């Protein structure tokens, strides 16, 4: 019984396919999901996801904070952001990170929701750059 993986962000459905296995970064460390996994609901943290597709290839994705649910053969990941490794634009990411960090310098004047959002961007940027550099 193969797994179905679905990654959804507020902007779009980033990934939806039948896969072999997937490794998800959670608040308690990375977890690998194989078919027949026990039902699980966990918090996802910014990091890299490794997906082994049906034909044995490995795909890499950077994800932001969110939640993951495993129910039967369905793996659903709900993340603030997610991007496939191939489409990461390193320059743009660095710029986004710099902008967010710049804005965070005056964090005392920002409201907590805004700070949370900016920190999310920074974590996601770090995850993207990390993934990109390691894959080179």
């Amino acid at each position: 019984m193969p797994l179905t993986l679905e990654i959804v962000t507020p902007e779009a459905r980033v990934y939806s396919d039948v896969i072999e296995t997937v490794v998800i970064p959670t608040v308690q460390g990375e977890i690998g999901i194989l078919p027949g996994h026990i039902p699980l609901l966990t918090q996802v943290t910014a990091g890299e996801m490794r997906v082994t597709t049906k034909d044995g290839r490995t795909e890499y994705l950077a994800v932001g904070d969110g939640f993951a649910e495993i129910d039967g053969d369905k793996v659903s990941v709900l993340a603030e952001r997610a991007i496939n490794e191939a489409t990461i634009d390193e320059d743009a990411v660095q710029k986004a990170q710099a902008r967010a960090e710049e804005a965070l310098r005056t964090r005392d004047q920002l409201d907590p929701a805004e700070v949370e959002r900016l920190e999310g961007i920074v974590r996601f940027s770090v995850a993207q750059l990390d993934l990109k550099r390691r894959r080179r």
Partner: protein
Amino acid sequence: MASTRDIRRRIKSVKNTRQITKAMELVAASKMKKAQSAALAGRPYAQLLASMLASLASRVEESAHPFLVKREVKTRGILLVTTDKGLCGPLNANLFKLVSEIKTPAKFVAIGRKGSQFLARTQRDLIADFPVHDRVPFNEVKVAVEFLMKQYLEGVVDTVEVIYARFKNTLVQEPIIRPILPLSNVAEFQALVDPKSVNADTRDMLFEPSAPAVLDALLPFYVNRYLYQVVLSAKASEHSARMVAMKTAKDNATKLVGELSLEYNKARQAAITQEILEIAAASFSAA
């Protein structure tokens, strides 16, 4: 019969109106496209979140989190999402009809100026209103939602419900009232949205790091996201309704101009005939 000059003046004024409504239609159309795609893009996310919550809620005790506990309802808390500006057909009036049907004690929170004006006019208990811009930044909605959740946790209100115009398509926006808190009915609601996603696995569910931690993170997050989606939907409805209203106004103006032109031409023709008759009569009597 009105004089030709009067008719000409009216034609000019109707043409001006048509130009304005046409411009407003175009503006609404472009805003509508953006708002619609935002509302539609967010739907899978909101649905998946709801389905996560449904499978969660069916597997934990009701007392695990204050958002899941059903209380005796003394005061309802209602979030009314309306537009800031008028000229969008019956959209707001339909929402107000829903509000008028509420007879039990309730406290209101408004998003949108029209709503807070209505609540003030009808002397209802408006506890706060929040402005949300056209682009619907998540943070602005979040402020309102955090406020509502706080009122709920402190016991000021015993439910949280939302009244808004649900976007179906450009021509149809449906005024609707949806319960948000307590979340006990989320399972039924989920079945309504997507009947095929019944829990596939009957084994006990594992929560990491722990059930309370996941609940604490997921439930407020869900409420935030869900209401954000509601506001997006309301905005899409607003711009669609406005576009349709302005298109109707423009078409009416065009029809009116046609009718007035006909009348004007008749009046002009009559005046010319009259003049010729008079000249002919004058030359007869002179001869």
